[in-house]
């Protein structure tokens, strides 16, 4: 293909946008609206996911051992526990350390001096952090099957709530993505339908004169890509600006919630959102224009 033809096709693609100003605006607005909703949803889900993950990291199981068990055996059991898939991190707290922590937390230096022996003599324990809260049950059964284990402390409610949250996030994500997808397809196909009516005659003329499918289609595809690109950049820009404002607003207005909520920085959200929205916008523009023109190429 000649360079001049390539330039001509690109020029026509850009010119098409201005020739059909209202159609272009409607298309950009449709894509932007869909991607804005999608972007808001992604940002909310990512933050929600982050909050649940942070909570999950704090969920632990504590294991206490029977009397008179040797320190060596405790360490041996610890090594076995650490090898299990349910375990993310394991911390050993000796009886001395446990008393020290308790003493400092509840009595302070001066009041605890009266104790000559360690009242928490049998309280050597492992604090086990889970890789996935839903695996708490299987880990607890394993721990309880070890003969030297005296007691296993766990938080069933927290674990099941967090597991439930995770499942909920997945279902809500699927549900909302399906709804957004259906709405987007409906809005975009409507816009494309209008586009077909506007372009029908033009495509026919080109075909009668002897233009190849490629020559007819290319300017429309370039137009579609530009519209899709602009349609994705606008909501991304808006989301970028709005995100920090909304996070700050929540932190100020709802101090109770914000004390245990940690929001992701906007840069982290955009690491996923930027390529995703651009790909979706450009993809919608590309496919939309291809389909619009394709229907009328058989002249």
């Amino acid at each position, binding site marked *: *293909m000649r360079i001049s*033809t390539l330039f001509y096709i690109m020029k026509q693609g850009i010119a098409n946008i201005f*020739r059909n100003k209202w159609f272009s605006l409607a298309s950009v607005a449709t894509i932007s609206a869909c991607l804005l909703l999608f972007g808001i949803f992604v940002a909310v889900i990512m933050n929600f996911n982050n909050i649940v993950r942070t909570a999950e990291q704090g969920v632990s199981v504590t294991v206490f051992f029977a009397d008179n068990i040797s320190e060596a055996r405790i360490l041996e059991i610890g090594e076995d526990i650490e090898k299990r898939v349910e375990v993310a991190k394991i911390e050993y707290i000796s009886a001395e350390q446990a008393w020290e922590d308790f003493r400092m937390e509840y009595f302070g230096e001066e009041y605890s001096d009266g104790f000559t022996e360690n009242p928490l003599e049998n309280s050597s324990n492992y604090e086990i952090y889970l890789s996935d809260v839903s695996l708490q049950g299987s880990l607890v059964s394993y721990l309880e099957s070890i003969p030297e284990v005296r007691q296993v402390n766990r938080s069933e409610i927290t674990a099941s709530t967090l597991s439930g949250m995770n499942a909920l996030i997945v279902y809500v994500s699927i549900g909302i993505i399906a709804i957004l997808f259906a709405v987007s397809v409906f809005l975009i196909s409507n816009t494309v339908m209008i586009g077909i009516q506007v372009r029908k005659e033009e495509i026919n*003329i080109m075909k009668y004169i*002897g233009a*190849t499918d490629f*020559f007819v289609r290319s300017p429309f595809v370039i137009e579609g890509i530009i519209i899709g690109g602009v349609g994705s950049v606008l909501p991304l820009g808006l989301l970028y600006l709005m995100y920090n404002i909304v996070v700050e607003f929540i932190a100020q207005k709802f101090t109770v919630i914000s004390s245990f909520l940690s929001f992701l920085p906007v840069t982290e959200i955009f690491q996923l959102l930027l390529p995703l929205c651009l790909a979706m916008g450009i993809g919608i523009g590309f496919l939309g224009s291809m389909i619009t023109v394709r229907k009328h190429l058989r002249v």
Partner: protein
Amino acid sequence: MALFRQVKSKKIPNENIIVLENVCKAYATGAPALSGVNLTIKQGEFVFIVGDSGSGKSTLIKLLLRELLPTSGEIYVNGQNLQHIKRRNVPKYRRNLGVVFQDFRLLKDRNVFDNVAFAQRIIQVPGREIRKNVPTILSVVGLAGKYKAKPRQLSGGEQQRVAMARALINRPPILLCDEPTGNLDPKNSWEIMKLLEQINQKGTTIIVVTHNREIVNEMQKRVVTMKKGIIVSDEEKGGYIDED
């Protein structure tokens, strides 16, 4: 007029440029649009195709444009059997035909220059040549001074001249005109027909589908009359046959 010299030099006397052999075309519903049509058009001829609505004229044009394929029979244009042209090669075939429609079919948002230049751009003529060829063909159709105008700023006759310039700029050996004067007043109609005659004199084969009785009777060209999908008369220097 330099644009037409090349066509003239290619002219082979008595060569059959369009041949229809027993062509039938039936649509899914209704009576057949064409039944057993045989027609031969020689290079450089000027032929009127006349007939009432539903006589099969439009189907004939669509078949020649390779927009439709015949249900049976063979169509040869420039020696090519149209049934054997693959879909991807249809654009290349259509470049042998200039087409002029009743409703002009100009790209409304482009000016006269761009409308005419479009036909050259699709065959990838360099920009330098396009800038030379377009004013030349516009002066042939008498629109040299209006190259910047948009179609809506032109009269019907002028718009049809733009359509003719577009159809002719690639020097096609055949010019198909589907009711070219259908939307024009008598004065403009005659001017368009005179222009077609001039182009024909330079060697281009011209086929005009029309309802215009006065023009057909006056011009004394070959007249093919169609009725209900068949050719009922084919006369050299013929006239418009009234419906009985």
